[in-house]
């Protein structure tokens, strides 16, 4: 379709010659063009001459041509017909027409039908002709590119509309017309346009980049996303039929609900029935019967754990697990989490070692969730170890992180299985028969989810027959890290909501008021925003950082002015950075606010 790229004029290196097909029945006029073009050194022109339309069409079919220069009046074709036939033969090749004084109207009409330009014979000089040819080639290329881009919405199978501030449709693609044929008739009363001006108004004011709504039209469910285009003062809306996806989601939710509720009742009854026989409520039981019933009850308990783990993982995956973050004494937490394993370690004659450097080791996280992480990993290590022991270690690492390690001298994991360790329902190797909880196949997937919720990373190293070590990082407690963690949370949320986020760095000069007093003053200044989600003030080495969700630079400046007034003891200064306008990561936003 598109002609090969070909620079219109060369710089240092001479560009390849421009291949011109000249269709002209008058040999004098043809010679004139050939002579004029031959004078041009850069670009060079390579002219093929045809004196009839038919010869021209043949040449077009045979040779690559960059541009056609054609007379409209030829012995075998006249007027606009000449252009139309050349154009039909090679729609991608730009055409410049040459006309006499008398048929300029034909030429104009041809331009309306797609000819690039026309020249009036007799007024042609070398420079003009060369320029007209080069422009024609360039313009044709730009047109092709535009029509290619226009085909994106035009050929998109999903409806796309552009709506102005009053809710009038200024563009709709063919998919809109086929899927919503009643749109023109219903206009503003159509569900797609209902409340459109209000939504666009909110987009303008809230500084969100887009907003999404769900619509039920007939028996189908649609998601409609609005993007406000500032300069054009319109919103583009993208509509997608999500009926099937919603049905699948509903089925998944129903399934989780069934798991949580319907499976527990029969499980509970079965377990209690086994227990009653086992407990001798219904008469004496033999040793062998006790053994079998205990196996059955252990498996019932395992099933209960799988059900709980499934619920946990589905909550984690749906982003419905929130952290109750606090300053956590990691050394104490590790000792507490591992103490529960000591009886089993003694029973299995395994060593259970905790290695923590002297001095405080504090992280910023959710204590309950961190206990779960250590319990999962240590429990796992114990299960697959029959000789040697398990070591739990934690120590400060680079850049404000703490690296934790749970290492065992157990079975190990084969190299080919290592990448699958954190997948759901992946269990490698059978645990030894001697006691211990039976696995769910979900523990490591949950562990990974919990570590990542803390913005840490987890990895595993293992050698078959020698043991396995899990390494993971947790944010060490420091003013800087608390800041980083909340900023990461805020950036993730803004990215998910397609919303803006502004960061204000408040600098308090040396000798200024105590940090607590500054924080109080800032909280006071933020009072009228209190209760608004996503407004958070945190101490920083420089003074404080304020996170403002759904706030642009202008909004952040207003808040900063209020803070400047509220801190009366000294003159504070401030710098801001806004997501996604200036940066897209937590680190960059903070760096920008600090660099200014």
């Amino acid at each position: 379709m598109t002609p090969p790229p070909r620079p219109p004029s060369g710089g240092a290196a001479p560009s390849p010659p421009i291949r011109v097909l000249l269709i002209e029945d008058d040999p004098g006029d043809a010679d004139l063009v050939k002579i004029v073009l031959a004078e041009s050194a850069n670009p060079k022109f390579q002219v093929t001459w045809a004196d009839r339309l038919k010869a021209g069409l043949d040449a077009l079919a045979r040779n690559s041509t960059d541009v056609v220069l054609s007379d409209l009046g030829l012995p075998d074709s006249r007027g606009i017909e000449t252009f139309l036939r050349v154009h039909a033969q090679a729609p991608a090749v730009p055409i410049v027409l040459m006309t006499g004084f008398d048929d300029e109207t034909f030429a104009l009409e041809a331009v309306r039908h797609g000819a690039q330009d026309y020249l009036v014979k007799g007024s042609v000089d070398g420079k003009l002709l060369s320029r007209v040819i080069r422009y024609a080639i360039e313009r044709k290329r730009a047109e092709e590119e535009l029509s290619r881009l226009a085909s994106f919405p035009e050929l998109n199978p999903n409806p796309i509309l552009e709506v102005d501030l009053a809710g009038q449709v200024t563009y709709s693609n063919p998919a809109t017309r086929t899927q919503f044929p009643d749109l023109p008739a219903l206009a503003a009363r159509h569900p797609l346009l209902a409340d459109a001006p209000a939504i666009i108004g909110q987009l303008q004011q809230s500084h969100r980049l887009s907003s999404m709504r769900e619509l039920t039209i007939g028996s189908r469910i649609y998601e409609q996303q609005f993007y406000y285009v500032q300069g054009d003062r319109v919103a583009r809306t993208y509509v997608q039929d999500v009926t099937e996806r919603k049905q699948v989601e509903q089925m998944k939710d129903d399934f989780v609900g069934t798991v949580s509720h319907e499976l527990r009742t029969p499980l509970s009854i079965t377990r209690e029935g086994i227990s009653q026989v086992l407990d001798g409520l219904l008469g004496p039981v033999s040793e062998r019967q006790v053994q079998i019933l205990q196996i059955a009850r252990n498996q019932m308990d395992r099933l209960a754990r799988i059900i709980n783990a499934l619920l946990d993982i589905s909550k984690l995956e749906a982003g419905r697990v929130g952290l109750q973050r606090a300053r956590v004494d990691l050394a104490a937490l590790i000792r507490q989490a591992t103490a529960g394993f000591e009886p089993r370690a003694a029973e299995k004659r395994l060593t259970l070692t905790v290695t923590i450097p002297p001095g405080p080791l504090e992280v910023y996280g959710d204590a309950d969730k961190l206990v779960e992480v250590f319990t999962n990993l240590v429990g796992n290590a114990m299960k697959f170890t029959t000789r040697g022991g398990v070591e739990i270690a934690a120590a400060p690492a680079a850049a404000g992180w703490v690296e934790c390690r749970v290492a065992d001298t157990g079975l190990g994991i084969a190299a080919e299985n290592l990448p699958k360790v954190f997948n759901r329902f992946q269990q490698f190797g059978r645990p030894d028969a001697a006691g211990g909880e039976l696995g769910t196949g979900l523990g490591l997937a949950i562990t990974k989810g919990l570590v990542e919720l803390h913005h840490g990373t987890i990895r595993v190293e293992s050698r078959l027959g020698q043991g396995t070590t899990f390494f993971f990082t947790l944010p060490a407690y420091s003013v800087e890290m608390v800041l980083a963690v909340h900023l990461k949370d805020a950036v993730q949320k803004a990215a998910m909501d397609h919303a803006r986020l502004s960061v204000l760095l408040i600098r308090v000069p040396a000798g200024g008021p105590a940090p607590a007093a500054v924080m109080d003053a800032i909280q006071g200044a933020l009072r009228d925003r209190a209760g608004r989600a996503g407004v958070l003030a945190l101490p920083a080495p420089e003074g404080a950082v304020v996170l403002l969700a759904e706030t642009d630079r202008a909004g952040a400046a207003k808040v900063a002015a209020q803070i400047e007034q509220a801190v009366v003891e000294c003159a504070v200064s401030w710098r801001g950075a806004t997501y996604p306008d200036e940066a897209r990561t937590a680190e960059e936003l903070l760096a920008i606010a600090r660099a200014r």
Partner: protein
Amino acid sequence: MDLKTAKAKKTILFVDDEPDQVLLIQTRLEANGYAVLTAADGETGLQLAIERQPDLVIVDLLIPRLDGLEICRRLKRDPTTARIPVALFTASATRDLDELCKTVGFSAYLRKPYDAAELLAIIQKLLTAP
């Protein structure tokens, strides 16, 4: 055991529409010296509680006619039954049960699957509470 003497026998009303569950709870509680009343739906359960004045009511959350929440609310509203402790028995993992206890008036809750020792401990605690 004192509890097994007829005089000291405490009466527990268990309301659940699952007959297998009812049989097992009844067996377990009777083996531990309690007298057990049962009902398979909420209305019958409520009526039985008012007429027989048990020492403890245990209700499943989802039962026909009146659900466990409604039974508890009505028992707490009625001055003749307001003093009877009500425990919630549920398979739900998603509801905030501590919150339900506070707002609706349950004295305790027990999640399914349960351990018999845990069930008996909760019952004993509720029956000896002042």
